[in-house]
């Protein structure tokens, strides 16, 4: 396969993902252009995916670092650190982001991510482009609730449950948010005891939900609450594909080897992609590169449709 046709296997997916990242940044108040997304933004997943995609689009770093100067207190350092293992080769990027948030965002929590006390290089443009996190925007609900209740599992759980059309189990909430099951379980128990979360003990597993109607007046009506996006699952997969594609031995491999590598990777992420609603029937089992082009094109279209 020629390099050109090889790139076409993923062109639409990367284009769609970049568009998603820009629109998510726009939705939470960063100085990005485009139509803001309509679903809730996962801030840590957005930062990590932007670090991965900055090689393809260097302006992502400019927009992210500009935003983090004002929004650092609303981003979870611990969650960023936990989720970082799911994103390929982001270690240096996380440290760089930590330095910006610590030294320019004046948030000491980030110091432990900064890796070294090395001073930041002077900014190319000292002008602050973003006006700070757009807390009232529906997709920024997780940031809004963190601003209200501090950066915590409980704030994230409330945003997650408010964004659900159905009841969810502890394990679904835990895997979707990237927290451990015991942590989520304890937090849900507290929220239930406080009367903020409802629950039903079913034979299989307890299910939890919030009575969203009670929150409408407080948050500004039904439209102020965006659906949860499940973007982490999708972004983790696309970033893994991007990392695979950047390996010279993969780019130079035969169609069969490339297709089987895509299949292996997609199989590992299948459950997450189904949960995210970006695929319906599982991933292809085919060793044909053409089938993988179709799959990635369909995934790109689904990302665009859900954003």
């Amino acid at each position, binding site marked *: 396969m020629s390099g050109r046709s090889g790139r076409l296997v993923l062109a639409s997916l990367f284009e769609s993902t970049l568009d998603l990242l820009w629109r998510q940044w726009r939705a939470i108040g960063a100085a990005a252009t485009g139509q803001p997304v309509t679903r809730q933004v996962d801030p840590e997943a957005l930062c990590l995916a932007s670090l991965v995609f900055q090689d393809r689009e260097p302006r992502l770093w400019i927009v992210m670092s500009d935003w983090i100067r004002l929004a650092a207190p609303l981003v979870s350092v611990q969650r960023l650190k936990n989720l970082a293992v799911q994103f390929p080769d982001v270690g240096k990027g996380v440290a760089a982001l930590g330095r910006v948030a610590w030294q320019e965002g004046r948030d000491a929590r980030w110091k432990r991510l900064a890796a070294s006390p090395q001073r930041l290089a002077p900014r190319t443009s000292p002008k602050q482009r973003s006006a700070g996190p757009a807390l009232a925007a529906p997709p920024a609900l997780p940031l809004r609730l963190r601003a209200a209740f501090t950066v915590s599992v409980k704030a994230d759980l409330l945003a997650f449950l408010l964004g659900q059309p159905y009841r969810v189990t502890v394990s679904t909430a835990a895997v979707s948010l990237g927290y451990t099951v015991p942590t989520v379980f304890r937090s849900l128990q507290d929220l239930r005891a406080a009367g903020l979360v409802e629950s039903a003990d079913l034979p299989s597993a307890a299910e939890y939900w919030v009575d969203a109607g009670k929150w409408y007046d407080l948050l500004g009506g039904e439209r102020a609450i965006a659906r949860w996006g499940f973007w982490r699952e999708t972004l983790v997969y696309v970033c893994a594909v991007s990392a695979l594609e950047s390996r010279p031995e993969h780019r130079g491999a*035969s169609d069969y*080897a490339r297709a089987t*590598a895509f299949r292996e990777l997609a199989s590992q992420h299948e459950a997450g992609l189904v949960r995210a609603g970006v695929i319906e029937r599982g991933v292809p089992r085919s060793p044909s590169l053409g089938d993988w082009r179709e799959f990635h094109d369909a995934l790109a279209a689904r990302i665009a449709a859900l954003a």
Partner: protein
Amino acid sequence: MQPLRTFADSADIRQALQRVGELLAAAGEEYGIVIVGGAALNLMGAVRRATRDVDILAFARGRGRSARLEPPPTPLPDVLAAAIHTVGRDMGLADTWLNADPALQWKQGLPRGLAGRVKWRKYGALRVGIVGRADMIRFKLYAAADDHPAGRHVSDLVALHPSDAELREAARWVKRQDAAPQFPAFVDQVVAHVRSLWAARAR
């Protein structure tokens, strides 16, 4: 679950080996193997028959005439085993379609000078050596002596068109492989049987 299939012909075998080689190349690994048996005969063009598997006799270090043969590692290296599994699944073959079962022959010893008679082919990052004709006759005669007279090893041996001298030389080597007192007689019977089949065909 679909029933496992066999290799229909040499093109089928070449495709499977090529795919393994492509997966190895993508993983940045390279291996050299020496094969015997029905798949090797198919690739040589000596026979054209269905076969279930590809038998690895040896692994090779180095290339060409300077290649040094050694017993296949047990288990096979992870990357190679994963490639075999992937290709087997894609082509509907058994997981053991590429196996090192003939490696037991190393305990009794290989024919002297076998490495120099191997003919090499390249399938991506997999170099496949096919044992030379004289060695193939030795291995087939050995297998036929352990098999039914109407078995496939005998017909494979006939298909190789061994000369009297080749059969004599092969019989000498095969008789040293088994200490059972009746074994040399079995070998002579097979040789006689092959000669009679070959003579009947010639008529």
